[in-house]
């Protein structure tokens, strides 16, 4: 029983970090008033860059950071197109979802000659904590002998929540997502705040994607991300657009994914039905919450700076 619980916690700790990183990124972008449905594309590109850099550099941490930067690069494109050039944000996000995976597969084929990268060796991946301290398969082994990033992301969530709620920047970013015109008149640089937030959303999504290739599995494949970016967006909606809420939602969705990976061996319930849960609960949440003004007011609206 205890070891089964350990197994479930372990599976949840594997599934949650990429969702949570991307969801934290999504929080930044959405709260600053820029809709970002390109999270999925940013994660996929980050996943590829992470794996490729792991093979080139041989250090998981450096590769992970590079994966984040890869996502940030797409974040820059989204930011310029949406903020500077006033493009429709949903359309721009759709384009990012073409370009991110397209670029990842293009580069993979150009560099490695295949849509899959070669597998990474253990030393090229992110490290696990407490390697060899606990007995393999024991409860503590399952819970503590995991990738250190799995615990690190929760620290990130707490820090980001602090930034959102207790710092000047946090106040500004929430304000520009609600009422950009008022912010501008108070001397807040709306464009700058939004640029920072959208690029950060790309960076965090890239980190999330790179976690998948550098920890969960050990290579890039076309299907590594499939839907995780959209689950992250669901988590943000479900978590009412704040980092702590998103964290709880990600844990819940990560648990779903953990359950799925455990029972998929036993054939009790179709894993496809379990995969629907995040989306269904988000729809229920939307129906229950909405109308209570929890979506940032200026979200998705084009803001043109007055001259």
């Amino acid at each position, binding site marked *: 029983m205890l070891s089964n619980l350990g197994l479930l916690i372990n599976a949840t700790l594997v599934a949650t970090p990429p969702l949570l990183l991307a969801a934290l990124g999504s929080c930044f972008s959405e709260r600053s008033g820029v809709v970002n449905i390109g999270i999925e594309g940013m994660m996929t590109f980050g996943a590829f860059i992470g794996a490729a850099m792991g093979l080139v550099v041989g250090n998981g941490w450096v590769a992970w950071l590079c994966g984040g930067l890869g996502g940030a690069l797409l974040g820059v494109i989204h930011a310029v197109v949406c903020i500077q050039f006033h493009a429709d944000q949903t359309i721009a996000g759709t384009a990012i979802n073409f370009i991110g995976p397209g670029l990842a597969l*293009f580069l993979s084929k150009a560099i490695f000659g295949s849509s899959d990268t070669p597998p990474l060796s253990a030393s090229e991946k992110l490290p696990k904590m407490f390697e060899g301290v606990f007995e393999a398969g024991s409860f503590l082994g399952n819970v503590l002998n995991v990738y250190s990033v799995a615990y690190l992301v929760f620290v990130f969530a707490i820090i980001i929540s602090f930034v959102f709620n207790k710092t000047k920047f946090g106040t500004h970013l929430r304000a520009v997502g609600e009422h950009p015109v008022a912010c501008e008149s108070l001397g807040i640089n709306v464009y700058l705040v939004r640029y920072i937030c959208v690029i950060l959303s790309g960076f965090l999504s890239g980190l999330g994607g790179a976690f998948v290739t550098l920890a969960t599995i050990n290579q890039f494949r076309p299907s590594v991300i499939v839907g995780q970016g959209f689950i992250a967006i669901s988590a943000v909606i479900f978590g009412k657009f704040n980092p702590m809420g998103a964290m709880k939602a990600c844990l819940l969705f990560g648990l779903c994914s953990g359950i799925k990976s455990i029972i998929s061996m036993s054939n009790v319930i179709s894993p496809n039905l379990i995969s629907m849960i995040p989306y*269904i609960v988000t729809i229920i949440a939307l129906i229950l919450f*909405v109308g209570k003004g929890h979506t940032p007011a200026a979200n998705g609206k084009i803001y043109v700076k007055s001259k």
Partner: protein
Amino acid sequence: MKKKTTILESNILYTIIAIIIGFLIGAIFLAAAGISPAEAYGKLWSGIFGKPKFMVWTLVYASPLIFTGLSVAFSFRTGVFNIGAEGQFVVGSLAACIVGILVELPPVIHAIVCILAAAVAGGLWSYIVGLMKVKRGIHEVLSFIMFNWIAFYLSNYAVNTEILHKEGDGEATKNVLDSARILFPESIRDLLDCSSANWGIILAIAAAIAIWVIIEKTTLGYKLKAVGFNKDAALYGGINAEKSILTALSISGALAGIGGAVQLLGMGARISQFAGQEGYGFDGITVALIAGSNPLGCIISGIFYGAMKYGGAKLTMVGAPEEVIDIIMGCVVIFIAISQIFKNVFMKLAKRKEAK
């Protein structure tokens, strides 16, 4: 002089510029990967126009894309954003597949029933999202994203049910019955030298004309556009905005659903388990954007996208990754999305010149 400004005002000019920029960016990536862009684009061209049968295949690829393009274009014209065409396409395809496998009917009638089932499934899938929008004020983009993924897993679930799953290994359904297929008669297929040549393209063109008539020539179209243009003014003018939004989304969803049926009954014959989203619905957004949301334009842009997909798959023959097509089309979308900026710059330049 006046003629020149009309050209500068027309959106087609900026769409063409966006497509050229897309190809240029694609060329940069190809060159950086050590592949000659001229050779790759030459292959793309000959892969589409090299033989008559290639052009037939292009039309086969284009048919479902014209439908999803119409679906999105119709939603744009009526003031909603159907980013859910992907999911409606999937449920449409699934409905057609179920009817195509489990129901026995005479040819032609069977195909028609399959297509109707797909239209109803796609329309309903979108109608629910419409209800959430008008009754609870939930932005359709959010709910559509969720519905796309629910459709995705629903289809994967259905593929693995005993009643639909094909015998033996392989993660796919049985083939739909021959009576449900919409293929051209064998003699014509032999003549065209294309095993999948089908009525889809005729249906797509007919649908495009019908949608154009609805939008431009009927009271219904006028009402739907009015609501999309200004909901409050339309309400003041005595139009039931809620009903209009529901109608618009249902029609839009039905079009995407039919696209799913056309793809299944024309090309695929069965549904395989998805590893990732197929993308027909998202491609529809590109098709609609290139067409400037004009239903008749969707025929041309759908064929363009179909050609890119069909020709793009042949790029591997010259060692170029076919994903360069995704990069090109993504860039085209971005540059169309920001075309207003180009327009402003060009118009300003033209005015300055005129002033001199």
